Protein backbone atom coordinates (compact mmCIF):
# COMPACT_ATOMS: atom_id res chain seq x y z
CA UNK A 1 0.00 0.00 0.00
CA UNK A 2 1.52 3.35 -0.96
CA UNK A 3 2.17 5.76 1.88
CA UNK A 4 -0.74 8.07 2.58
CA UNK A 5 0.48 11.62 2.50
CA UNK A 6 -0.92 14.96 3.54
CA UNK A 7 0.50 17.35 0.98
CA UNK A 8 0.34 21.14 1.14
CA UNK A 9 -0.68 21.91 -2.47
CA UNK A 10 -2.13 20.52 -5.70
CA UNK A 11 1.24 20.90 -7.38
CA UNK A 12 2.75 18.74 -4.63
CA UNK A 13 0.06 16.10 -5.21
CA UNK A 14 0.74 16.17 -8.95
CA UNK A 15 4.46 15.94 -8.22
CA UNK A 16 4.07 12.86 -6.04
CA UNK A 17 1.78 11.29 -8.69
CA UNK A 18 4.47 11.94 -11.31
CA UNK A 19 7.24 10.52 -9.12
CA UNK A 20 5.17 7.41 -8.40
CA UNK A 21 4.51 6.89 -12.09
CA UNK A 22 8.18 7.26 -13.01
CA UNK A 23 9.23 5.08 -10.07
CA UNK A 24 6.77 2.35 -11.03
CA UNK A 25 7.37 2.36 -14.79
CA UNK A 26 10.99 3.45 -15.21
CA UNK A 27 12.85 2.66 -11.98
CA UNK A 28 11.39 -0.41 -10.25
CA UNK A 29 11.60 -2.73 -13.31
CA UNK A 30 15.36 -2.08 -13.59
CA UNK A 31 16.46 -2.03 -9.95
CA UNK A 32 17.19 -5.68 -9.16
CA UNK A 33 19.14 -6.27 -12.36
CA UNK A 34 21.28 -3.14 -12.11
CA UNK A 35 22.04 -3.74 -8.43
CA UNK A 36 22.97 -7.37 -9.10
CA UNK A 37 25.38 -6.29 -11.85
CA UNK A 38 26.70 -3.29 -9.90
CA UNK A 39 25.72 -1.01 -12.76
CA UNK A 40 25.41 2.73 -12.18
CA UNK A 41 22.23 3.89 -13.99
CA UNK A 42 23.34 7.28 -15.35
CA UNK A 43 20.39 7.34 -17.80
CA UNK A 44 17.89 7.19 -14.93
CA UNK A 45 19.38 10.40 -13.54
CA UNK A 46 18.97 12.01 -16.95
CA UNK A 47 15.27 11.15 -16.96
CA UNK A 48 14.87 12.49 -13.42
CA UNK A 49 16.80 15.60 -14.41
CA UNK A 50 14.61 16.17 -17.46
CA UNK A 51 11.55 15.82 -15.26
CA UNK A 52 12.88 18.47 -12.88
CA UNK A 53 13.38 16.02 -10.01
CA UNK A 54 17.06 16.80 -9.40
CA UNK A 55 16.38 20.42 -8.45
CA UNK A 56 13.16 20.39 -6.43
CA UNK A 57 14.16 22.43 -3.36
CA UNK A 58 15.94 25.25 -5.22
CA UNK A 59 14.64 28.62 -6.50
CA UNK A 60 12.56 28.70 -9.66
CA UNK A 61 14.69 31.57 -10.97
CA UNK A 62 17.61 29.15 -11.41
CA UNK A 63 15.50 26.35 -12.81
CA UNK A 64 14.61 24.74 -9.50
CA UNK A 65 11.20 23.53 -8.40
CA UNK A 66 10.83 25.97 -5.47
CA UNK A 67 9.47 23.19 -3.29
CA UNK A 68 9.69 23.16 0.48
CA UNK A 69 11.72 20.34 2.04
CA UNK A 70 8.45 18.88 3.30
CA UNK A 71 7.55 18.12 -0.34
CA UNK A 72 11.00 17.44 -1.83
CA UNK A 73 11.74 14.84 0.84
CA UNK A 74 8.49 12.98 0.22
CA UNK A 75 9.29 12.81 -3.48
CA UNK A 76 12.74 11.49 -2.54
CA UNK A 77 11.11 8.92 -0.24
CA UNK A 78 9.02 7.64 -3.16
CA UNK A 79 12.15 7.23 -5.28
CA UNK A 80 13.86 5.36 -2.43
CA UNK A 81 10.97 2.89 -2.24
CA UNK A 82 11.66 1.96 -5.86
CA UNK A 83 15.46 2.29 -6.00
CA UNK A 84 17.64 3.14 -3.05
CA UNK A 85 20.87 3.80 -4.97
CA UNK A 86 19.09 6.32 -7.16
CA UNK A 87 17.46 8.08 -4.21
CA UNK A 88 20.81 8.36 -2.43
CA UNK A 89 22.26 9.75 -5.66
CA UNK A 90 19.53 12.38 -5.86
CA UNK A 91 20.07 13.33 -2.23
CA UNK A 92 23.84 13.63 -2.72
CA UNK A 93 23.36 15.68 -5.90
CA UNK A 94 20.96 18.05 -4.12
CA UNK A 95 23.44 18.36 -1.26
CA UNK A 96 26.32 19.10 -3.61
CA UNK A 97 24.35 22.03 -5.08
CA UNK A 98 23.58 23.41 -1.62
CA UNK A 99 26.82 25.28 -0.85
CA UNK A 100 26.63 27.32 -4.09
CA UNK A 101 22.89 27.92 -3.72
CA UNK A 102 23.17 28.98 -0.08
CA UNK A 103 26.64 30.47 0.41
CA UNK A 104 27.57 31.52 -3.12
CA UNK A 105 27.61 35.19 -4.10
CA UNK A 106 24.92 36.47 -6.47
CA UNK A 107 27.52 36.53 -9.20
CA UNK A 108 28.50 32.91 -8.59
CA UNK A 109 24.88 31.78 -8.53
CA UNK A 110 24.15 33.60 -11.77
CA UNK A 111 27.14 31.97 -13.35
CA UNK A 112 26.76 28.33 -12.30
CA UNK A 113 23.60 27.48 -10.40
CA UNK A 114 21.25 27.15 -13.38
CA UNK A 115 23.68 24.68 -14.98
CA UNK A 116 23.94 22.62 -11.80
CA UNK A 117 20.15 22.47 -11.55
CA UNK A 118 19.30 21.94 -15.23
CA UNK A 119 19.20 18.17 -14.85
CA UNK A 120 22.01 17.18 -17.22
CA UNK A 121 24.75 17.41 -14.62
CA UNK A 122 25.33 15.21 -11.61
CA UNK A 123 27.20 16.42 -8.53
CA UNK A 124 29.37 14.90 -5.82
CA UNK A 125 30.13 16.07 -2.29
CA UNK A 126 33.70 15.35 -1.25
CA UNK A 127 34.42 15.82 2.45
CA UNK A 128 35.64 12.46 3.82
CA UNK A 129 39.21 11.24 3.55
CA UNK A 130 40.55 7.87 4.55
CA UNK A 131 41.91 9.12 7.88
CA UNK A 132 39.20 11.80 8.30
CA UNK A 133 35.75 10.19 8.51
CA UNK A 134 33.84 11.03 11.66
CA UNK A 135 36.61 13.50 12.41
CA UNK A 136 36.11 15.39 9.15
CA UNK A 137 38.03 18.42 10.42
CA UNK A 138 41.21 16.34 10.15
CA UNK A 139 41.06 16.46 6.36
CA UNK A 140 44.35 17.08 4.59
CA UNK A 141 43.65 17.68 0.89
CA UNK A 142 45.58 20.87 0.21
CA UNK A 143 44.69 23.94 -1.80
CA UNK A 144 47.64 26.25 -2.40
CA UNK A 145 47.10 29.70 -3.86
CA UNK A 146 48.76 30.37 -7.23
CA UNK A 147 47.75 33.89 -8.35
CA UNK A 148 44.06 33.65 -9.38
CA UNK A 149 43.89 29.89 -8.89
CA UNK A 150 44.17 27.27 -6.21
CA UNK A 151 46.23 24.16 -6.87
CA UNK A 152 44.48 21.25 -5.16
CA UNK A 153 46.32 18.07 -4.19
CA UNK A 154 45.11 15.15 -2.11
CA UNK A 155 42.73 12.19 -2.03
CA UNK A 156 39.09 12.24 -1.07
CA UNK A 157 37.59 8.95 0.11
CA UNK A 158 34.16 7.38 -0.18
CA UNK A 159 32.94 9.91 -2.72
CA UNK A 160 29.45 9.05 -3.98
CA UNK A 161 29.56 9.60 -7.79
CA UNK A 162 33.38 9.69 -7.61
CA UNK A 163 34.61 9.46 -11.20
CA UNK A 164 31.14 9.85 -12.75
CA UNK A 165 30.26 13.28 -11.34
CA UNK A 166 30.18 16.38 -13.54
CA UNK A 167 31.14 18.62 -10.63
CA UNK A 168 32.57 18.18 -7.14
CA UNK A 169 31.84 20.29 -4.10
CA UNK A 170 35.15 19.74 -2.32
CA UNK A 171 36.34 20.66 1.15
CA UNK A 172 40.06 21.46 1.11
CA UNK A 173 42.66 22.66 3.58
CA UNK A 174 43.91 26.19 2.98
CA UNK A 175 45.69 26.61 6.34
CA UNK A 176 46.86 24.50 9.26
CA UNK A 177 44.40 26.17 11.57
CA UNK A 178 42.41 22.92 12.24
CA UNK A 179 38.66 23.26 11.73
CA UNK A 180 39.15 26.91 10.75
CA UNK A 181 41.57 26.07 7.97
CA UNK A 182 39.02 24.43 5.68
CA UNK A 183 37.62 25.97 2.48
CA UNK A 184 34.87 24.96 0.05
CA UNK A 185 35.53 24.80 -3.72
CA UNK A 186 33.16 24.06 -6.58
CA UNK A 187 35.29 22.03 -8.98
CA UNK A 188 34.41 21.17 -12.58
CA UNK A 189 34.64 17.38 -12.98
CA UNK A 190 36.48 17.77 -16.28
CA UNK A 191 39.41 19.72 -14.82
CA UNK A 192 42.77 18.09 -15.63
CA UNK A 193 44.37 16.27 -12.69
CA UNK A 194 41.20 14.68 -11.33
CA UNK A 195 41.07 10.88 -11.40
CA UNK A 196 39.07 8.26 -9.58
CA UNK A 197 40.16 4.94 -8.10
CA UNK A 198 38.19 1.80 -8.98
CA UNK A 199 34.85 1.92 -7.10
CA UNK A 200 34.62 0.35 -3.62
CA UNK A 201 33.18 -3.18 -3.60
CA UNK A 202 30.27 -2.66 -1.25
CA UNK A 203 27.86 -4.83 0.70
CA UNK A 204 24.88 -2.97 -0.73
CA UNK A 205 23.96 0.15 -2.67
CA UNK A 206 25.84 -1.56 -5.48
CA UNK A 207 24.18 0.53 -8.18
CA UNK A 208 25.79 3.63 -6.69
CA UNK A 209 29.43 4.46 -7.39
CA UNK A 210 31.55 5.12 -4.29
CA UNK A 211 35.19 5.85 -5.02
CA UNK A 212 38.33 7.65 -3.93
CA UNK A 213 38.99 10.74 -5.98
CA UNK A 214 42.57 11.90 -6.49
CA UNK A 215 43.39 15.55 -7.03
CA UNK A 216 46.83 16.02 -8.49
CA UNK A 217 47.67 19.71 -8.77
CA UNK A 218 44.13 20.46 -9.97
CA UNK A 219 43.85 24.12 -10.97
CA UNK A 220 40.66 25.71 -9.58
CA UNK A 221 39.97 29.43 -10.13
CA UNK A 222 39.58 31.44 -6.92
CA UNK A 223 36.25 32.58 -8.43
CA UNK A 224 34.99 29.05 -7.71
CA UNK A 225 35.60 29.33 -3.96
CA UNK A 226 32.27 29.22 -2.07
CA UNK A 227 32.39 31.50 0.97
CA UNK A 228 35.63 32.79 2.44
CA UNK A 229 38.77 30.84 3.17
CA UNK A 230 38.27 29.05 6.48
CA UNK A 231 34.47 28.84 6.19
CA UNK A 232 34.54 25.41 4.57
CA UNK A 233 33.70 23.27 7.58
CA UNK A 234 30.78 25.49 8.56
CA UNK A 235 29.45 25.22 5.00
CA UNK A 236 30.03 21.46 4.92
CA UNK A 237 28.18 20.89 8.19
CA UNK A 238 25.32 23.13 7.12
CA UNK A 239 25.00 21.08 3.92
CA UNK A 240 24.98 17.92 6.02
CA UNK A 241 22.08 19.19 8.17
CA UNK A 242 19.92 19.25 5.04
CA UNK A 243 21.57 16.16 3.55
CA UNK A 244 20.71 14.16 6.67
CA UNK A 245 17.06 14.95 6.13
CA UNK A 246 17.48 13.47 2.65
CA UNK A 247 19.01 10.31 4.11
CA UNK A 248 16.16 10.11 6.65
CA UNK A 249 13.62 10.29 3.81
CA UNK A 250 15.53 7.61 1.85
CA UNK A 251 15.49 5.40 4.96
CA UNK A 252 11.73 5.75 5.37
CA UNK A 253 11.16 4.95 1.69
CA UNK A 254 13.28 1.83 2.03
CA UNK A 255 11.48 0.76 5.20
CA UNK A 256 8.12 1.34 3.52
CA UNK A 257 9.13 -0.86 0.59
CA UNK A 258 10.22 -3.61 3.01
CA UNK A 259 6.96 -3.34 4.94
CA UNK A 260 4.90 -3.53 1.73
CA UNK A 261 6.82 -6.57 0.57
CA UNK A 262 6.39 -8.27 3.96
CA UNK A 263 2.65 -7.60 4.12
CA UNK A 264 2.07 -8.81 0.57
CA UNK A 265 3.97 -12.01 1.27
CA UNK A 266 2.31 -12.64 4.64
CA UNK A 267 -1.12 -12.32 3.06
CA UNK A 268 -0.57 -14.99 0.46
CA UNK A 269 1.79 -17.42 2.21
CA UNK A 270 -0.11 -20.16 4.05
CA UNK A 271 1.14 -22.46 6.82
CA UNK A 272 -0.94 -24.62 9.15
CA UNK A 273 -3.80 -24.07 6.68
CA UNK A 274 -3.96 -20.30 7.14
CA UNK A 275 -2.32 -17.19 5.69
CA UNK A 276 0.63 -16.49 7.98
CA UNK A 277 -0.58 -12.89 8.47
CA UNK A 278 -3.30 -14.35 10.69
CA UNK A 279 -0.82 -15.55 13.29
CA UNK A 280 -0.51 -13.06 16.11
CA UNK A 281 3.24 -13.58 16.33
CA UNK A 282 3.57 -12.16 12.84
CA UNK A 283 0.69 -9.73 12.99
CA UNK A 284 2.28 -7.88 15.88
CA UNK A 285 5.63 -7.86 14.14
CA UNK A 286 4.02 -6.26 11.07
CA UNK A 287 2.11 -3.78 13.23
CA UNK A 288 5.35 -2.74 14.94
CA UNK A 289 7.01 -2.32 11.54
CA UNK A 290 4.16 -0.09 10.33
CA UNK A 291 4.25 1.95 13.54
CA UNK A 292 8.00 2.44 13.17
CA UNK A 293 7.75 3.51 9.52
CA UNK A 294 5.03 6.04 10.16
CA UNK A 295 6.75 7.45 13.26
CA UNK A 296 10.00 7.85 11.35
CA UNK A 297 8.15 9.65 8.56
CA UNK A 298 6.51 12.00 11.04
CA UNK A 299 9.92 12.68 12.60
CA UNK A 300 11.64 13.75 9.39
CA UNK A 301 8.62 15.78 8.27
CA UNK A 302 8.64 17.69 11.56
CA UNK A 303 12.31 18.54 11.07
CA UNK A 304 11.62 19.51 7.44
CA UNK A 305 8.80 21.84 8.44
CA UNK A 306 11.12 23.59 10.88
CA UNK A 307 13.63 24.03 8.10
CA UNK A 308 10.93 25.34 5.74
CA UNK A 309 9.98 27.97 8.33
CA UNK A 310 13.53 29.12 8.75
CA UNK A 311 13.81 27.73 12.31
CA UNK A 312 16.97 26.04 13.60
CA UNK A 313 16.73 22.31 12.81
CA UNK A 314 20.18 20.78 13.36
CA UNK A 315 19.12 18.70 16.37
CA UNK A 316 15.88 17.64 14.68
CA UNK A 317 17.74 16.66 11.50
CA UNK A 318 20.12 14.48 13.51
CA UNK A 319 17.22 12.92 15.40
CA UNK A 320 15.40 12.23 12.12
CA UNK A 321 18.52 10.66 10.58
CA UNK A 322 19.09 8.51 13.69
CA UNK A 323 15.47 7.41 14.10
CA UNK A 324 14.75 6.83 10.41
CA UNK A 325 17.91 4.88 9.63
CA UNK A 326 17.68 2.71 12.77
CA UNK A 327 14.05 2.09 11.77
CA UNK A 328 15.10 1.10 8.25
CA UNK A 329 17.64 -1.36 9.66
CA UNK A 330 15.12 -2.97 12.00
CA UNK A 331 12.21 -3.03 9.54
CA UNK A 332 14.26 -4.49 6.70
CA UNK A 333 15.68 -7.15 9.05
CA UNK A 334 12.17 -8.02 10.22
CA UNK A 335 10.96 -8.15 6.61
CA UNK A 336 13.52 -10.88 5.93
CA UNK A 337 12.13 -12.71 8.97
CA UNK A 338 8.55 -12.43 7.68
CA UNK A 339 9.54 -14.00 4.36
CA UNK A 340 11.38 -16.84 6.10
CA UNK A 341 13.75 -18.78 3.84
CA UNK A 342 12.49 -16.89 0.80
CA UNK A 343 13.59 -13.66 2.45
CA UNK A 344 17.15 -14.91 2.65
CA UNK A 345 17.35 -15.52 -1.10
CA UNK A 346 18.11 -13.09 -3.92
CA UNK A 347 14.79 -14.03 -5.54
CA UNK A 348 13.10 -11.51 -3.27
CA UNK A 349 14.22 -7.91 -2.69
CA UNK A 350 14.18 -7.88 1.11
CA UNK A 351 17.72 -9.21 1.61
CA UNK A 352 18.91 -6.37 -0.62
CA UNK A 353 16.87 -3.88 1.38
CA UNK A 354 18.60 -5.14 4.52
CA UNK A 355 22.04 -4.66 2.95
CA UNK A 356 21.04 -1.20 1.74
CA UNK A 357 19.72 -0.18 5.16
CA UNK A 358 23.07 -0.74 6.86
CA UNK A 359 24.93 2.04 5.09
CA UNK A 360 22.29 4.56 6.12
CA UNK A 361 23.46 4.18 9.73
CA UNK A 362 27.02 4.94 8.62
CA UNK A 363 27.22 7.76 6.07
CA UNK A 364 26.49 11.48 6.42
CA UNK A 365 27.60 11.09 10.03
CA UNK A 366 27.41 7.70 11.73
CA UNK A 367 24.54 7.26 14.15
CA UNK A 368 27.06 7.60 17.00
CA UNK A 369 27.94 11.02 15.58
CA UNK A 370 24.22 11.93 15.34
CA UNK A 371 23.90 11.19 19.06
CA UNK A 372 26.90 13.46 19.68
CA UNK A 373 25.22 16.27 17.72
CA UNK A 374 21.96 15.79 19.60
CA UNK A 375 23.72 15.67 22.98
CA UNK A 376 25.84 18.75 22.20
CA UNK A 377 22.66 20.66 21.39
CA UNK A 378 21.11 19.55 24.71
CA UNK A 379 24.25 20.52 26.58
CA UNK A 380 24.41 23.96 25.01
CA UNK A 381 20.69 24.54 25.66
Amino acid at each position, binding site marked *: MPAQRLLPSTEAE*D*LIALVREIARDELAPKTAEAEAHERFPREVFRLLGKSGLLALPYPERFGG*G*AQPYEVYLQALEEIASAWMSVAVGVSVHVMSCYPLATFGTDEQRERWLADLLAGDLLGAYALSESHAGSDAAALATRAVRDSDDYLVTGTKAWTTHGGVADFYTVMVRTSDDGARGITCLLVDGGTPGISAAPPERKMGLTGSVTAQVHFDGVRVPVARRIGEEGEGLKIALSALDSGRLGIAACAVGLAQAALDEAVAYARQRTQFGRPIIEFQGLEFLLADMAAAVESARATYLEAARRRDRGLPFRRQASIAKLVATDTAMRVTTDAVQVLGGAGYTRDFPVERYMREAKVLQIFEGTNQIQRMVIARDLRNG
Partner: protein
Amino acid sequence: MNIVVLVKQVPDTWSERKLTDADHTLDREAADAVLDEINERAVEEALRIKEAQGGEVTVVSMGPDRATDAIRKALSMGADKAVHVSDEALHGSDAVQTARVLAKAIGTVEGYDLILAGNEATDGRAGAVPAMIAELLGLPQLTQARKVSFDGSTVTVERETEEGLTTVQASLPAVVSVTEKINEPRYPSFKGIMAAKKKPVNTVTVADLGIDAGEVGLAGALTTVLEAAPKPPRTAGERVEDDGTGGTKIAEYLVGQKLI
Protein backbone atom coordinates in the same frame (compact mmCIF):
# COMPACT_ATOMS: atom_id res chain seq x y z
CA MET B 1 -2.60 23.88 -36.48
CA ASN B 2 -5.18 24.14 -33.72
CA ILE B 3 -5.95 20.80 -32.17
CA VAL B 4 -8.67 19.61 -29.81
CA VAL B 5 -7.82 16.50 -27.79
CA LEU B 6 -10.58 14.57 -26.08
CA VAL B 7 -9.48 13.17 -22.74
CA LYS B 8 -11.15 11.05 -20.12
CA GLN B 9 -10.39 10.20 -16.55
CA VAL B 10 -10.62 6.47 -15.93
CA PRO B 11 -9.93 4.11 -13.04
CA ASP B 12 -6.25 3.21 -12.93
CA THR B 13 -5.73 -0.14 -14.63
CA TRP B 14 -3.24 -0.84 -11.80
CA SER B 15 -6.02 -0.76 -9.20
CA GLU B 16 -9.10 -2.95 -8.77
CA ARG B 17 -12.00 -1.71 -10.89
CA LYS B 18 -15.70 -2.32 -10.24
CA LEU B 19 -19.22 -1.12 -10.92
CA THR B 20 -21.60 0.21 -8.27
CA ASP B 21 -24.33 -2.18 -7.12
CA ALA B 22 -26.96 0.57 -7.26
CA ASP B 23 -27.00 1.44 -10.98
CA HIS B 24 -24.12 -0.48 -12.57
CA THR B 25 -22.23 2.69 -13.33
CA LEU B 26 -18.54 2.96 -12.67
CA ASP B 27 -17.62 2.96 -8.97
CA ARG B 28 -15.37 5.99 -9.09
CA GLU B 29 -14.57 5.84 -5.39
CA ALA B 30 -13.25 2.27 -5.60
CA ALA B 31 -10.17 2.94 -7.67
CA ASP B 32 -7.53 5.60 -8.19
CA ALA B 33 -8.46 7.79 -11.12
CA VAL B 34 -5.96 8.70 -13.81
CA LEU B 35 -5.81 10.23 -17.26
CA ASP B 36 -6.51 7.34 -19.62
CA GLU B 37 -3.24 6.12 -21.09
CA ILE B 38 -4.63 6.12 -24.62
CA ASN B 39 -5.45 9.81 -24.09
CA GLU B 40 -1.89 10.48 -22.98
CA ARG B 41 -0.90 9.21 -26.40
CA ALA B 42 -3.47 11.44 -28.08
CA VAL B 43 -2.13 14.43 -26.12
CA GLU B 44 1.43 13.42 -27.02
CA GLU B 45 0.53 13.28 -30.72
CA ALA B 46 -1.12 16.70 -30.50
CA LEU B 47 1.98 18.14 -28.82
CA ARG B 48 4.26 16.67 -31.48
CA ILE B 49 2.12 18.16 -34.25
CA LYS B 50 2.10 21.50 -32.44
CA GLU B 51 5.87 21.37 -31.98
CA ALA B 52 6.28 20.76 -35.72
CA GLN B 53 3.66 23.16 -37.04
CA GLY B 54 2.76 25.63 -34.29
CA GLY B 55 -0.77 26.30 -33.10
CA GLU B 56 -2.63 25.55 -29.92
CA VAL B 57 -3.74 22.39 -28.14
CA THR B 58 -7.04 22.42 -26.26
CA VAL B 59 -8.13 19.46 -24.16
CA VAL B 60 -11.84 18.77 -23.82
CA SER B 61 -13.14 16.48 -21.12
CA MET B 62 -16.49 15.43 -19.76
CA GLY B 63 -16.48 14.06 -16.23
CA PRO B 64 -17.10 14.77 -12.57
CA ASP B 65 -15.24 17.47 -10.62
CA ARG B 66 -12.25 15.30 -9.94
CA ALA B 67 -11.64 14.88 -13.67
CA THR B 68 -9.74 18.16 -13.22
CA ASP B 69 -6.82 15.95 -12.13
CA ALA B 70 -6.75 14.28 -15.55
CA ILE B 71 -7.11 17.63 -17.28
CA ARG B 72 -4.20 19.04 -15.25
CA LYS B 73 -2.08 16.08 -16.27
CA ALA B 74 -2.73 16.87 -19.95
CA LEU B 75 -1.94 20.54 -19.32
CA SER B 76 1.25 19.64 -17.45
CA MET B 77 2.35 17.56 -20.43
CA GLY B 78 2.09 20.75 -22.47
CA ALA B 79 -1.48 21.35 -23.69
CA ASP B 80 -2.43 25.03 -23.66
CA LYS B 81 -5.97 25.18 -22.28
CA ALA B 82 -8.99 23.08 -21.43
CA VAL B 83 -12.76 22.84 -21.54
CA HIS B 84 -14.28 20.75 -18.76
CA VAL B 85 -17.94 19.73 -18.99
CA SER B 86 -18.97 18.95 -15.44
CA ASP B 87 -22.59 18.44 -14.46
CA GLU B 88 -24.40 16.12 -12.03
CA ALA B 89 -26.97 15.53 -14.78
CA LEU B 90 -24.37 13.69 -16.88
CA HIS B 91 -24.10 10.74 -14.46
CA GLY B 92 -24.73 7.51 -16.36
CA SER B 93 -24.68 9.02 -19.85
CA ASP B 94 -24.08 6.48 -22.63
CA ALA B 95 -21.84 6.78 -25.68
CA VAL B 96 -24.40 8.64 -27.85
CA GLN B 97 -25.19 11.21 -25.16
CA THR B 98 -21.48 11.63 -24.43
CA ALA B 99 -20.75 12.25 -28.10
CA ARG B 100 -23.51 14.88 -28.27
CA VAL B 101 -22.18 16.73 -25.24
CA LEU B 102 -18.57 16.56 -26.43
CA ALA B 103 -19.56 17.74 -29.94
CA LYS B 104 -21.16 20.82 -28.37
CA ALA B 105 -18.14 21.37 -26.13
CA ILE B 106 -15.79 21.14 -29.12
CA GLY B 107 -18.00 23.81 -30.73
CA THR B 108 -16.87 26.28 -28.06
CA VAL B 109 -13.26 25.99 -29.27
CA GLU B 110 -12.59 28.50 -32.00
CA GLY B 111 -10.98 27.56 -35.27
CA TYR B 112 -9.89 23.97 -34.72
CA ASP B 113 -8.31 22.00 -37.57
CA LEU B 114 -8.06 18.60 -35.97
CA ILE B 115 -9.82 16.60 -33.26
CA LEU B 116 -7.70 13.86 -31.69
CA ALA B 117 -8.98 11.10 -29.42
CA GLY B 118 -8.02 7.68 -28.17
CA ASN B 119 -9.65 4.88 -30.15
CA GLU B 120 -11.29 3.44 -27.05
CA ALA B 121 -11.27 4.22 -23.34
CA THR B 122 -9.78 1.58 -21.05
CA ASP B 123 -12.93 1.58 -18.89
CA GLY B 124 -16.06 1.62 -21.08
CA ARG B 125 -14.27 0.29 -24.18
CA ALA B 126 -17.19 1.25 -26.45
CA GLY B 127 -14.74 2.62 -29.00
CA ALA B 128 -17.51 4.53 -30.72
CA VAL B 129 -17.39 8.07 -29.38
CA PRO B 130 -14.86 9.54 -31.87
CA ALA B 131 -16.87 8.24 -34.84
CA MET B 132 -20.13 9.54 -33.37
CA ILE B 133 -18.61 12.97 -32.84
CA ALA B 134 -17.41 13.07 -36.46
CA GLU B 135 -20.93 12.18 -37.55
CA LEU B 136 -22.50 14.88 -35.37
CA LEU B 137 -20.04 17.53 -36.55
CA GLY B 138 -20.23 16.43 -40.19
CA LEU B 139 -16.47 15.78 -40.30
CA PRO B 140 -14.47 12.95 -41.82
CA GLN B 141 -13.43 10.25 -39.35
CA LEU B 142 -10.08 8.48 -39.46
CA THR B 143 -10.11 5.95 -36.66
CA GLN B 144 -7.53 3.49 -35.24
CA ALA B 145 -4.55 5.52 -36.40
CA ARG B 146 -1.08 4.20 -35.71
CA LYS B 147 0.55 6.98 -37.71
CA VAL B 148 -0.62 10.47 -38.65
CA SER B 149 0.93 12.84 -41.18
CA PHE B 150 -0.02 16.06 -42.90
CA ASP B 151 0.39 17.64 -46.31
CA GLY B 152 -1.13 21.11 -46.38
CA SER B 153 -4.75 20.67 -45.41
CA THR B 154 -4.75 16.93 -46.01
CA VAL B 155 -4.34 14.44 -43.19
CA THR B 156 -3.11 10.92 -43.92
CA VAL B 157 -3.50 8.11 -41.45
CA GLU B 158 -2.20 4.57 -41.27
CA ARG B 159 -5.20 2.74 -39.94
CA GLU B 160 -4.54 -0.57 -38.23
CA THR B 161 -7.31 -3.01 -37.38
CA GLU B 162 -7.58 -6.78 -36.99
CA GLU B 163 -8.29 -6.93 -40.74
CA GLY B 164 -5.01 -5.29 -41.57
CA LEU B 165 -3.42 -2.00 -42.52
CA THR B 166 -5.08 0.66 -44.67
CA THR B 167 -4.04 4.17 -45.56
CA VAL B 168 -6.83 6.71 -45.37
CA GLN B 169 -6.88 10.38 -46.24
CA ALA B 170 -9.18 13.31 -45.59
CA SER B 171 -9.14 17.04 -45.73
CA LEU B 172 -9.09 19.04 -42.51
CA PRO B 173 -10.86 19.58 -40.21
CA ALA B 174 -11.19 15.91 -39.32
CA VAL B 175 -11.52 13.55 -36.36
CA VAL B 176 -8.61 11.16 -35.80
CA SER B 177 -8.57 8.45 -33.13
CA VAL B 178 -5.27 6.82 -32.22
CA THR B 179 -4.22 3.37 -31.00
CA GLU B 180 -1.52 2.57 -28.47
CA LYS B 181 0.98 2.11 -31.32
CA ILE B 182 0.93 5.81 -32.18
CA ASN B 183 3.74 6.95 -29.84
CA GLU B 184 5.27 6.79 -26.37
CA PRO B 185 3.82 9.63 -24.31
CA ARG B 186 6.23 11.94 -22.48
CA TYR B 187 6.24 12.39 -18.71
CA PRO B 188 5.26 15.83 -17.59
CA SER B 189 8.14 17.76 -16.05
CA PHE B 190 7.79 19.50 -12.71
CA LYS B 191 8.03 22.78 -14.62
CA GLY B 192 5.05 21.61 -16.66
CA ILE B 193 3.17 20.84 -13.46
CA MET B 194 3.81 24.35 -12.17
CA ALA B 195 2.87 25.92 -15.50
CA ALA B 196 -0.37 23.90 -15.65
CA LYS B 197 -1.69 25.76 -12.61
CA LYS B 198 -1.80 28.96 -14.61
CA LYS B 199 -3.42 27.60 -17.78
CA PRO B 200 -7.07 28.44 -18.43
CA VAL B 201 -9.71 25.76 -17.77
CA ASN B 202 -13.20 26.68 -18.90
CA THR B 203 -15.67 24.69 -16.78
CA VAL B 204 -19.14 24.48 -18.31
CA THR B 205 -22.47 22.81 -17.49
CA VAL B 206 -24.78 21.12 -20.01
CA ALA B 207 -27.02 24.19 -19.83
CA ASP B 208 -24.05 26.36 -20.84
CA LEU B 209 -23.74 24.18 -23.93
CA GLY B 210 -27.43 24.66 -24.76
CA ILE B 211 -28.36 21.07 -23.91
CA ASP B 212 -31.44 20.20 -21.89
CA ALA B 213 -30.40 18.28 -18.75
CA GLY B 214 -33.22 15.79 -19.44
CA GLU B 215 -31.51 14.65 -22.63
CA VAL B 216 -28.43 13.38 -20.80
CA GLY B 217 -27.74 11.01 -17.92
CA LEU B 218 -28.84 7.54 -16.95
CA ALA B 219 -32.61 8.15 -17.35
CA GLY B 220 -32.37 9.28 -20.96
CA ALA B 221 -29.66 6.84 -22.03
CA LEU B 222 -30.35 4.74 -25.15
CA THR B 223 -28.48 1.80 -23.67
CA THR B 224 -28.96 0.30 -20.23
CA VAL B 225 -26.85 -2.09 -18.22
CA LEU B 226 -29.27 -4.63 -16.74
CA GLU B 227 -26.84 -6.84 -14.93
CA ALA B 228 -23.17 -6.94 -14.04
CA ALA B 229 -21.10 -9.67 -12.46
CA PRO B 230 -17.45 -9.70 -11.52
CA LYS B 231 -15.18 -11.74 -13.69
CA PRO B 232 -14.91 -15.30 -12.24
CA PRO B 233 -11.64 -15.96 -10.44
CA ARG B 234 -8.93 -17.52 -12.53
CA THR B 235 -9.08 -21.29 -12.61
CA ALA B 236 -6.05 -23.47 -12.08
CA GLY B 237 -5.55 -23.99 -15.82
CA GLU B 238 -4.38 -27.07 -17.56
CA ARG B 239 -0.92 -28.47 -17.01
CA VAL B 240 1.02 -30.08 -19.81
CA GLU B 241 3.88 -32.35 -18.78
CA ASP B 242 6.48 -32.38 -21.49
CA ASP B 243 7.27 -36.00 -22.27
CA GLY B 244 8.47 -35.06 -25.73
CA THR B 245 4.97 -34.29 -27.03
CA GLY B 246 4.55 -31.06 -25.04
CA GLY B 247 4.67 -28.85 -28.11
CA THR B 248 2.01 -30.85 -29.93
CA LYS B 249 -0.25 -30.86 -26.87
CA ILE B 250 -0.01 -27.09 -26.49
CA ALA B 251 -0.76 -26.63 -30.19
CA GLU B 252 -3.78 -28.96 -29.90
CA TYR B 253 -5.04 -27.02 -26.90
CA LEU B 254 -4.72 -23.69 -28.73
CA VAL B 255 -6.52 -25.12 -31.76
CA GLY B 256 -9.27 -26.38 -29.43
CA GLN B 257 -9.66 -22.83 -28.07
CA LYS B 258 -9.74 -21.51 -31.66
CA LEU B 259 -6.69 -19.41 -30.87
CA ILE B 260 -4.60 -20.75 -33.74
